[in-house]
C-alpha cells in the first residue's frame, strides 16, 4: 500500500470511529432527550412495570448462551433458519417487551462462553447485559466497577415468582446474599436446584428375605450390612455378598458423588470437605476438625470387620457399579436420583431387585444431617451506565414466570423450542424455587391420586407422569417396564415422596468458592488429607496420625487459606 492510500485510510478510520463514539454516547447518556412529556411518561411507565412494553424498540447488547446440542437439532423444523438474534425466545421478548438483543458474542454455555466473558472483561468493554457463570468473575466485575447497582431494579420490578423462589432457599442460603456487596444487589442470581440429601439405598428384596427392618441409626445400619454379608441374602448358598460399597474419594461434592459416604460423617457431627462456621463464628475447614476422629475410627473398625468394601480405595466407579449390578452388593449411599444409575437399572432388569431409599444413618435427632448445595448457578449483570438496567430484571421475569403461565399462541413457539433446544433464553437465567423437583413430584402425585387433572401439569411434569403410568401398567401386567421408565418412576415418585416426608437437617457451608492461595496449595493439601483419611480407614495408620495431619495441614498453607476465606466472607 502506498503512503497516500495509507494516510487516507487512517483518516477514514479515525473519522468513522469518532462518529461512532459520538452517536453511541448520545444514546447512552440521555434516552429521553428531546421527548415530549407524554413520551417521557410512556417510557417511565414501561420502566417501572415488571412486564411493561417499551414505546419503541430497545436494543441491548449481550453475550448469548447456546446449548451444546448444535444447530443441526433444528434442521427440518420450522426453526432451522433461526439465529441467536432472531429465534423463538427473542421474537417472544420483542413481542412482549419490544426489545431486541444484539450479540457481542455467542458461545456454548460452559468454558467456551466463560472465556468470551473473561475476554470482554479483560478488554474493559462488556455488553449491556450478560450472564456470568462464576463468583470470581462477579467479584472481579464489582471490584473493577464495571457493573450497575440493581438494588432498586430488583426491589421494584422482580416478579412474585422470582422473589418467592429466592426466599425458598432460606435466609442463610438465599442466592441474593451472594450478589449483595456493601448492601447493594449487584446482579440477578440464577438459581441452582437443591439436590436434597443422600439416602442409604438398600435392596428391599434382600431386607424382606432376611426379615429385616429398615435401619435408621448407625448401629441399625451396621446390623443390616452385617446381615447382608453373612446371611446369604441372594440365596445362592455361597458366601459371596458384601456390605457397603464406598467411593474411592470417601466423601465430597455432596450429594452428587453417588457411593460417597458423607452421611456416616455427618451423622456423627463431622462435615468433611466443606467450610463450616465454627462456634466463634469464623469459617473453618471441616476435614481438619476434632469431630472427624469418631467417624474415622468407626470406619476403620468397619473396614476391619469387612462391613465396608475392603478394596474401596482401588475401585473405580465402574467397578462399584459392577459389584451392584452383578448382585454382590445391595447397599450404597446415594441421592434421590440414584435409580438412574446403571447399578440400579441393570439389577431391575436382570435380578428382580427392588430398591428403597432409607433415611440412614441419622444424627442425634433422628434426621439425616445433610449439606446444602450452592443456591446460585450464575449471575446476570448490567453494564454501568446502561440506560435500561430494568430490562435485565424484566427478561428474567418473563423467563421465570410470565412465559410459563402464558397459554396464548404467542408462547407456543417458545414451548416448542424448549424441547428442541439449541437456543437458550437470552441472559440464560431462570429463577426457580430450590425445591422445584419436590414441587413437580407433588403435582404429579396429585394427578395420580385423582386430586388434579393431567392438563394442569407442565410439559416437564407431564413427561414424568406418563413414565409413571407406563411403569405401573407394565408392573401390573407382570412385565418388566422400560428401564428409563423404571428410573423416572422410582426416583420421582417413591424416592422423592420419602424426601418430602422425611426431611433432613441442612447445614449451609460458610463458603463455597476458592481463594487465591487455594489455587496453588489446594492440590497439595488435598493429597495430605486423602492420604491420611484412607490410611486411617484401612488401618495402615491409627487415629493418632490425625493430629499430626492437622498440624501439617495448617503449616502447609491451610492456615493461610483459612485466613483468606474469612477475609472474603467478611467483605
Amino acid at each position, binding site marked *: 500500500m502506498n503512503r497516500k492510500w495509507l494516510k487516507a485510510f487512517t483518516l477514514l478510520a479515525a473519522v468513522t470511529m469518532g462518529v461512532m463514539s459520538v452517536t453511541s454516547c448520545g444514546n447512552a447518556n440521555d434516552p429521553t432527550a428531546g421527548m415530549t412529556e407524554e413520551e417521557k411518561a410512556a417510557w417511565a411507565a414501561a420502566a417501572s412495570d415488571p412486564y411493561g412494553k417499551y414505546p419503541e424498540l430497545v436494543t441491548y447488547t449481550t453475550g448469548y448462551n447456546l446449548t451444546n446440542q448444535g444447530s443441526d437439532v433444528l434442521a427440518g423444523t420450522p426453526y432451522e433458519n433461526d439465529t441467536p438474534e432472531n429465534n423463538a425466545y427473542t421474537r417472544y421478548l420483542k413481542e412482549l417487551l419490544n426489545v431486541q438483543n444484539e450479540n457481542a458474542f455467542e458461545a456454548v454455555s460452559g468454558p467456551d462462553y466463560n472465556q468470551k466473558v473473561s475476554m470482554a472483561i479483560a478488554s474493559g468493554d462488556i455488553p449491556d447485559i450478560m450472564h456470568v457463570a462464576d463468583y470470581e468473575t462477579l467479584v472481579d466485575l464489582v471490584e473493577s466497577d464495571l457493573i450497575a447497582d440493581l438494588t432498586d431494579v430488583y426491589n421494584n420490578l422482580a416478579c412474585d415468582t422470582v422473589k418467592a423462589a429466592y426466599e425458598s432457599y432460606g435466609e442463610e442460603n438465599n442466592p441474593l446474599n451472594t450478589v449483595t456487596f456493601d448492601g447493594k444487589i449487584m446482579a440477578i442470581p440464577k438459581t441452582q436446584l437443591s439436590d436434597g440429601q443422600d439416602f442409604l439405598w438398600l435392596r428391599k428384596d434382600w431386607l424382606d428375605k432376611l426379615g429385616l427392618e429398615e435401619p435408621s441409626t448407625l448401629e441399625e445400619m451396621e446390623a443390616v450390612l452385617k446381615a447382608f454379608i453373612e446371611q446369604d441374602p441372594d440365596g445362592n448358598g455361597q458366601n459371596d455378598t458384601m456390605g457397603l460399597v464406598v467411593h*474411592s474419594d470417601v466423601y465430597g461434592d455432596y450429594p452428587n458423588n453417588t457411593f460417597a459416604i458423607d452421611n456416616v460423617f455427618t451423622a456423627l457431627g463431622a462435615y468433611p470437605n466443606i467450610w463450616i462456621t465454627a462456634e466463634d463464628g469464623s469459617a473453618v475447614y471441616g476435614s481438619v476438625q476434632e469431630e472427624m476422629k469418631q467417624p474415622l475410627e468407626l470406619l476403620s473398625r468397619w473396614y476391619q470387620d469387612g462391613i465396608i468394601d475392603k478394596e474401596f480405595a482401588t475401585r473405580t466407579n465402574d467397578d462399584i457399579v459392577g459389584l451392584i449390578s452383578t448382585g454382590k452388593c445391595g447397599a450404597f449411599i446415594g441421592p434421590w436420583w440414584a435409580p438412574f444409575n446403571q447399578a440400579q437399572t441393570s439389577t431391575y432388569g436382570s435380578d428382580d431387585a427392588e430398591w428403597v431409599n432409607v433415611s440412614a444413618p441419622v444424627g442425634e435427632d433422628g434426621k439425616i444431617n445433610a449439606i446444602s448445595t450452592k443456591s446460585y448457578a450464575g449471575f446476570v449483570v448490567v453494564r454501568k451506565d446502561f440506560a435500561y438496567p430494568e430490562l435485565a430484571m424484566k427478561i428474567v421475569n418473563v423467563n421465570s414466570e410470565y412465559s410459563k403461565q402464558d397459554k396464548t399462541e404467542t408462547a407456543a413457539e417458545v414451548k416448542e423450542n424448549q424441547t428442541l433446544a439449541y437456543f437458550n433464553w437470552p441472559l440464560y437465567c431462570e429463577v426457580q424455587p430450590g425445591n422445584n423437583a419436590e414441587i413437580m413430584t407433588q403435582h404429579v402425585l396429585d394427578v395420580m391420586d385423582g386430586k388434579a387433572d393431567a392438563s394442569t401439569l407442565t410439559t416437564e411434569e407431564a413427561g414424568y407422569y406418563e413414565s409413571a403410568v407406563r411403569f405401573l401398567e407394565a408392573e401390573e401386567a407382570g412385565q418388566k417396564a422400560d428401564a428409563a421408565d423404571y428410573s423416572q418412576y422410582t426416583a420421582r415418585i417413591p424416592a422423592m415422596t420419602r424426601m418430602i416426608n422425611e426431611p433432613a437437617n441442612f447445614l449451609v457451608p460458610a463458603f463455597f468458592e476458592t481463594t487465591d492461595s*487455594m489455587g*496453588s496449595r489446594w492440590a497439595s493439601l488435598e493429597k495430605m488429607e486423602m492420604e491420611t483419611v484412607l490410611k486411617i480407614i484401612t488401618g495402615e495408620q491409627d487415629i493418632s496420625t490425625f493430629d499430626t495431619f492437622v498440624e501439617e495441614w495448617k503449616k502447609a498453607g491451610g492456615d493461610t487459606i483459612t485466613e483468606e476465606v474469612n477475609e472474603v466472607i467478611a467483605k
Partner: protein
Amino acid sequence: MTSSPAKHARISSGDRKERMTFHLMLLPGMIMLLIFVFVPLVGSLMAFQDYVPARGLFGSKWVGLENFEIIFSFPDSVQVFWNTLIIAFGKLVMNAIIPVVFSILLNELGGKYFKRTFQTIVYLPHFLSWVVLATVVTNMFSLEGPINALIGLFGAEPIQFLASNQWFRTVIIGTDVWKEFGYNSVVYLAALLAVDPGLYEAASIDGASRFKQILHITLPALMPTVVLMTALNLGNILNAGFDQVFNLYNPIVYETGDIIDTYVYRIGMVEGQYSIGTAVGLFKSVISFILILGANNVAKKTTGSSIF
C-alpha cells in the same frame, strides 16, 4: 555450504526430482513436528508468568521465578521427585536387562516359525493403552484375583498390591516391563541378526560351549546397542509413566507412587494452575536434556557410538 558449480553439476535433474519426492514425503512429518513440538515451546513462557487464559500469553503478568519457589515449598515435592526417580530408574534398568535376556534366549531357540510366533505374542501388549490394561492389572492384583489365588495356594495371606506402599512400585515396574519387553527386544533381535555366523562357527570349532559363546560373542555384539538405547532412555528418567501410574494409583500409595506427572496433573489441570504446571514441566525438560547430553558423552567415550 557455498554452491560450487561442479557440485551442482553432479546432481542430475532426474536425481533432484527424485530427492524432491523424498523431501515432500518428509514434509508432513516436519509440519507435525513444527506444530506440535516447536510451537508449543513458546508456551513454556507461562512458567514465568501468573498466567490467566483470558489475558493470554502476552497479557499475563510476569513473576520471574515465583512459580519455581512455590513448587519447591510444597511439603511433598521432594517425595514426588524421589518417587519419580526410583520408578523411572527401576523401569530403565529392567527394560534394558529383560529384553536383552529375552532376545538372547529367543536367539538360541531353533525353529523359525516358533520364534516368529513367540515374538509376535510378547509384542502384543505394547499396543494396548494403559487405560485398558489398568483394568486388567487391577483385576489380576485384586483380593480375589489370580495373583492372590496363587499366593493363597502357598498358604499366605492375600495382599492388596495396589493399596500397599511396599508393593506398589514393584507392580508398576513389573507391569511396565511385561508390557514393553517384547517391543523393546525388537532392536536387540535385529542387532543379533547382524552378528557374523562365522564367529559362532569359529568359536564352536575352538570348543566354546553355548554359554561361552553367549558371553563372548553375543553379549559384546549387543553392548553398543544396549548402551545406545539406555542413553536414549535416560532422557526419560523423569518420565515415570503418567498414564500407567494415573490409572493404577490411589491416595493410599501417594507416598510411594505419586510422580511428578500425576502431581502436575492434579495441580495444573484439576486446580487450573497452568503456570505452576508449566514450571514443573520445564524443570523436568531441563533435567532430561542435561541427562541426555551426559549419557550421550558417556556412550561416545565408552563404546564409540552416540546419537549426536
